[in-house]
């Protein structure tokens, strides 16, 4: 356990994970999750797992945040529609 790169990557991941939970707005959370995905990819690379890093990079920093953002957009659009329709 003398590799400083591993320690730094671990702390980075822990900080990103904590921020991802602490941020309550789902849009911002999606962006923090992308950062978390990136940090995890770095950690996995230092842990000599390039396969998992590649997988995490594609999924964690692109696919999952994109799905979250699309869901937020759908739900917000519905709520906007409803508040617009209510006074009638």
């Amino acid at each position, binding site marked *: *356990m003398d590799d400083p790169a*591993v*320690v730094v990557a*671990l*702390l980075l*991941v*822990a900080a990103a*994970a*904590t921020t*991802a*939970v*602490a941020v*309550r*707005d*789902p849009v911002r*959370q*999606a962006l923090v*999750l992308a950062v*978390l995905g990136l940090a*995890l990819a770095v*950690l*996995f690379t230092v*842990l*000599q*797992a*390039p*396969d*998992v890093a590649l*997988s*995490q990079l594609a*999924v*964690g920093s692109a*696919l*999952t945040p994109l*799905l*979250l953002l699309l*869901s*937020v957009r*759908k*739900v917000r659009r*519905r*709520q906007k529609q*409803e508040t617009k329709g209510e006074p009638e």
Partner: protein
Amino acid sequence: MSVLPYLVAVWIFLVGAHGLATSRNLIHAVGCLAVCQSGTYVLLLAVGYREGATAPVYADLEPGSRPVVDPVVQALALTDVVVGATVTALLLALVMQIAKRHGTVDPDELSELRG
């Protein structure tokens, strides 16, 4: 110091679980579940790490010339990363259905609706 990676994995998992329990928005809760999942990846890869070893890929490595890290845990984590993303998509689809049926994504309001 040799337990720091395990403790970080535990921390990520617990922080995610806490967010999951206290979330006021189901989309945010799904994001917290993704955080929980990443804790398990960190744990798996930490278990498989070997000091001074390289990746278990022999495309440009003479077999036996260097120690390699454990490939089994890597294979487990790698498939779960991708499969986990599709499960996240399924959960988000459920959230969209809930928003459509009940007009809210706040779990507290939902339990009030159920009466």
